[in-house]
């Protein structure tokens, strides 16, 4: 399309409303109306072309109306997602199809069928975020580029119609000494930290132009943030693994490709002491113990050059106490304290005379690695005939069985040998059970204490997308502060044959610019600038 030449000689892009240089309204509207200063009346692509498909798509995404709708739809969808818990917050063993119906009735069922139980990772929610991203990008380019052009090309001397049609405008008496007046007003404007330019009898005073770029900066930050959070799907950038380690155990850290090993030295679980005075009132009210600390003392090792198949040599890297809020960090990995379990580990028994309960010897069973045979000396001996770490009685086979390999409810079948009973006697021992199947045993195995052991639950994380996301967040913050805490103010002064014209514009905070200019006009004995928009409203 052809460029549009203004009377002042400046060539404007096709579609321009107000000349970039002198501010003369190119598409003259009704004479009384104020100028629409939005984007300086520049030629925005979306306002200029609307013929082919590309134009239509561009115009769709550049519309703030569309942008706000996208934001509002996302907002409402997010809210719906909080009505019932998301799938990740329901018990992991529950079947979601049944769970939502059982817990929340018909509404729950509908919720599940519509996919709201996994809302935030659903394709359409991600698509919404993507559309917002596209919209931000298109809208920013559509406005930012012409705005930048126009602000760079603006001239000091503006067309009369430009000044007259500003929201803040006044005509004052022509000063007697023009030079002195010019110097004085320049001084006053500089005093208010305006950057001033003068051309003959015209002045342009401007400040805070950088705040105009605030929205564009914050939108760039948002885009970086959005892209950063999607990068997680790229292999190698993100790792999230859980691991359990017992006290005393050394394990390769998951996801490190056997490069790092961790030894769990000791686990600490503390609760607040009710006697601690400042908290005693609250602790007595809640009754239950309040946890104070979960801590795994660990040692981190690095494997030296490993030969295939051979056990690696480990060299110690550091000792650390992992606590909630204090992950262990090394080489891009973080290890978090997330869970713990306490398990029975050693069970201690005594072999006793069934009648006198006199002990003839004692032994301990390692519940994870039980020995078969315990020699108690003096010809006394116990054999482990059967071990059921997680005991239950199977009604079909009519035999003891185990649910899992975890010693939650250990039960044993022992065979006891003594010099008096060389044939051996059988006993069944479980928690709070001590059966004598034959009914006439001379000896018995008695429970004599238990050792428990902590197993810590750690999460291994590596997330190379975090710095990108953080940078996006920082840029966003810089942008919003830049755009919202400062504003772009301009004042034009033009000394004419008979009078002095003064006009002003700010992109926001009219109260602020009015106070500033009132101060100047009073000092210079000029007419106070009138807010023509308010005047027209009153009329």
């Amino acid at each position: 399309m052809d460029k549009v030449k203004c009377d002042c000689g400046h060539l404007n892009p096709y579609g321009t409303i107000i000349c970039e240089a002198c501010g003369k309204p190119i598409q003259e509207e009704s004479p009384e109306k104020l100028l629409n200063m939005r984007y300086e009346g520049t030629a925005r692509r979306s306002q200029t072309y609307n013929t082919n498909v590309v134009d239509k798509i561009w115009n769709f995404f550049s519309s703030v109306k569309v942008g706000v709708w996208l934001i509002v739809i996302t907002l409402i969808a997010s809210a719906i997602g909080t009505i019932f818990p998301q799938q990740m917050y329901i018990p992991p063993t529950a079947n979601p199809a049944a769970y939502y119906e059982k817990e929340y009735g018909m509404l729950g069922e509908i919720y599940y069928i519509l996919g709201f139980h996994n809302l935030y990772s659903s394709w359409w929610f991600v698509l919404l975020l993507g559309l917002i991203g596209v919209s931000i990008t298109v809208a920013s380019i559509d406005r930012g580029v012409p705005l930048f052009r126009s602000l760079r090309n603006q001239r000091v001397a503006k067309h009369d119609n430009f000044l007259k049609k500003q929201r803040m405008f006044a005509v004052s008496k022509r000063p007697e000494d023009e030079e002195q007046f010019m110097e004085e007003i320049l001084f006053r404007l500089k005093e208010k930290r305006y950057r001033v330019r003068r051309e003959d009898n015209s002045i342009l005073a401007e400040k805070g132009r950088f705040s105009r770029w605030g929205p564009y900066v914050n939108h760039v930050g948002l885009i970086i943030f959005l892209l950063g959070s999607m990068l997680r799907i790229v292999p190698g950038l993100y790792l999230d693994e859980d691991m359990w380690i017992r006290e005393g155990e050394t394990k390769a850290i998951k996801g490190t490709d056997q490069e790092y090993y961790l030894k769990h030295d000791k686990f600490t679980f503390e609760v607040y002491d009710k006697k601690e005075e400042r908290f005693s009132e609250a602790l007595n009210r809640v009754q239950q113990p309040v946890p104070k600390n979960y801590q795994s003392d660990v040692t981190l090792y690095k494997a030296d050059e490993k030969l295939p198949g051979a056990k690696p040599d480990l060299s110690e890297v550091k000792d650390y106490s992992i606590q909630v809020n204090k992950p262990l960090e090394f080489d891009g990995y973080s290890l978090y304290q997330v869970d713990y379990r306490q398990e029975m580990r050693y069970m201690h028994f005594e072999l006793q005379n069934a009648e006198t309960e006199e002990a003839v010897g004692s032994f301990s069973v390692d519940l994870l690695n039980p020995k078969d045979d315990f020699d108690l000396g003096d010809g006394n001996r116990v054999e482990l005939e059967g071990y059921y770490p997680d005991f239950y009685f199977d009604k079909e086979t009519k035999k003891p069985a185990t649910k899992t390999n975890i010693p939650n409810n250990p039960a044993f079948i022992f065979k006891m040998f003594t010099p008096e009973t060389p044939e051996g006697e059988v006993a069944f021992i479980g928690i709070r059970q001590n059966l004598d199947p034959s009914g006439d045993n001379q000896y018995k195995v008695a429970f004599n204490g238990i050792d428990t052991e902590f197993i810590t639950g750690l999460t291994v994380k590596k997330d190379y997308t975090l710095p990108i996301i953080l940078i996006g967040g920082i840029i966003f913050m810089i942008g919003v502060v830049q755009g919202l805490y400062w504003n772009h103010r301009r004042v034009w002064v033009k000394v004419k044959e008979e009078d002095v014209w003064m006009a002003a514009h700010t992109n926001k905070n009219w109260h602020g610019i009015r106070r500033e200019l009132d101060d100047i006009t009073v000092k210079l004995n000029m007419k106070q600038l009138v807010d023509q928009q308010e005047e027209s409203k009153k009329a």
Partner: protein
Amino acid sequence: MAQLSSSLLYIAFFIYFTATILFVVSLTVKEKDGTKSNKWGKWGYILSIIGFICQLGYFITRWIAAGHAPVSNLFEFTTFFGMMMVFGFIIIYAIYRLNVLGVFAMPVALLVIAYASMFPREIEPLIPALQSNWLKIHVTTAALGEGILAISFVAGLIYLVATIDQSKGSKKTGWLEFVLYTLLSTLGFILVSIGFGTANYQASFEWVNESGNQAELVYHMPAIAGPHDGVQLTEGTFGPLFEAPAWMEGVDAPKKLNTFIWALFSGLILYLLLRLSLRKRLGAALKPLMKNINTQLVDEISYRSIAIGFPVFTLGALIFAMIWAQAAWTRFWGWDPKEVWALITFLFYAAYLHLRLARDWHGEKSAWLCVLGFVIIMFNLIAVNIVIVGLHSYA
């Protein structure tokens, strides 16, 4: 120290109360020289600052007594939020010097603080997840942002009271009455709590609580809504009229629901009493107070406080929150309901800024949005804790 701390809070409360009265007076007296500020308003402002300093004293002494920043349960957080509202008011008043702002901002802050003190006030120990400096920074900054945003609600409300046509009833006057009624409900809740508290009312139920355990639930107000499948243990007490639905899963949800119903009910009674004695809509009764108000300025204040509050809120409620969550929960974002509602608040104000800047939503439309924004903030503070279980429902 703890004793001194709570005394300071009481003192602050009464100073705020006095400041409110001075601001009201400042609207009724004729301004002799025609300037906006007068000496009543000036003293109201000075008292607001003194009250704020007292409350800051409360905050610091409680911090010393507890050994951690007092923003770790609902009482502490809500009190702090009230304090940040006053702070937001102090900032905005310094810019615009508009007395009518005090007439609404101070009572709303008073309501928030009084509401806070209905929760258990003892100093509580911190569970491990809350033992983090980032948590303090996150919570205080978020509350500051919300406090400043609350001033936009105040300005929006003033705009609506001043401009809505009260000559005949309409949808708008209806909604305005509704907003005023919710404020009265908060007052009602406080009065009812104090009332039954003084009478030492108790009724207990046996029920299966949110974690699936048999437990006893003690009501301190007559049970309108009882626990789901609850069995009454106390004899001769009132109700319950019906049972709370099973899907309310917050800690002690039925009791909170019951309290909520009492709040609505007492608010209704207060509203009707006022309405009958004034013989007109509350909006209509307030409107004459606003006759000298520059509504355009009020409109600008409502926008300005969002412009100032939005970045602070984003920094505190989203960015600092993410930094803390990354350390405490291994991920910076987990779609926990409270997190989601902070995001909703953020999106809402972002939409507001765009509508205002690019689609010229000024004046009344903008004022309604300011009110709605505050509703979202309060929803996140109150309702999310009641209805939804999440990581934040610690109080």
